[in-house]
């Protein structure tokens, strides 16, 4: 359960960005959470709401975009999203595919009102 630390890092980043825009009020922050990030979106939302409450940023919405794991097939150069645990290439059936993404823990955007 490290979602509280992650939520705290998101808030730090929002504050830093807000300082660059005096007078603007941040209403929403968007994050991308990969399937391999080790972060549970529900726990993150909960931790975030607890940390925001009663601060100068309250109310601040958190929007989480879950991102699936992706694999790339070196044989046919196909990149695909992984459903369940099947890492074999859906195009050429090769089992030798490589990790191509899914560990995102990214700040995607802020929404502000001037």
């Amino acid at each position: 359960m490290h979602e509280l630390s992650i939520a705290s890092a998101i808030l730090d980043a929002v504050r830093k960005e807000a300082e660059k825009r005096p007078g603007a009020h941040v209403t929403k922050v968007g994050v991308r959470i990969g399937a391999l990030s080790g972060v549970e979106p529900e726990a993150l939302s909960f931790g975030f709401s607890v940390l925001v409450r009663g601060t100068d940023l309250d109310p601040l919405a958190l929007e989480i975009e879950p991102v699936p794991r992706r694999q790339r097939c070196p044989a046919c150069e196909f990149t695909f999203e992984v459903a369940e645990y099947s890492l074999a290439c859906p195009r050429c059936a090769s089992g030798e595919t490589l990790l191509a993404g899914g560990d995102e823990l990214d700040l995607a955007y802020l929404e502000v009102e001037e």
Partner: protein
Amino acid sequence: MDRIPLEKKVLSENDRIAARLRESFREHGILCVNLISSPGSGKTSLLERTLERFPKDARVAVLTGDIQTDNDARRLARFGFPAKQITTGGTCHLDALRVERALGDWPLENLDLLIIENVGNLVCPSSYDLGEAAKIVLLSVAEGEDKPLKYPSIFAKSELLVLNKIDLLPYVSFDIARAREYARQIHPGMEILEVSCTTGQGLDQWIQWLEKLREAVTSDK
């Protein structure tokens, strides 16, 4: 209402410090590995068996993370190599800043190998880069063989799986073939070593694995 794209990492501050550590390890020719497992899989035992095999003048040091107590650092200090405890006081993982602070006064030019024993946890440590050359995940046969499927993040991100306590195989229902299969399902081509810290089986291969990785890492210098 304006939408401002940010496109940066949530843990960019951790990643910045981790990059600084990685650069420092590279400059000093140090192999740094990050050992991760559930509580009780045998990280500290593996380190004990590892340290006792090194010659007295080996340039090796250990950082060990726990929520409370310095028991592990005391266990590891008996071998005469620098061992420092990081107590996180409740936090379930190590981060790069804690590692940098713990390294503080250590002369890195005297080191070839730094082993970081993370807090016992298969989830949270997987999100934090510590500047290591490789993450290593331990799984003991006293656990479930489906752990790679349950905790895919750490198995996908680790270079090596150490299957520990294999001397217990006759007494437990652990299906080792399945465990290997699940690990490679999550991480195709993952390297796997079978080890027993009690009988010593597999320890030579483990030390060789570290030596090979150190050669690979330092030859990039």
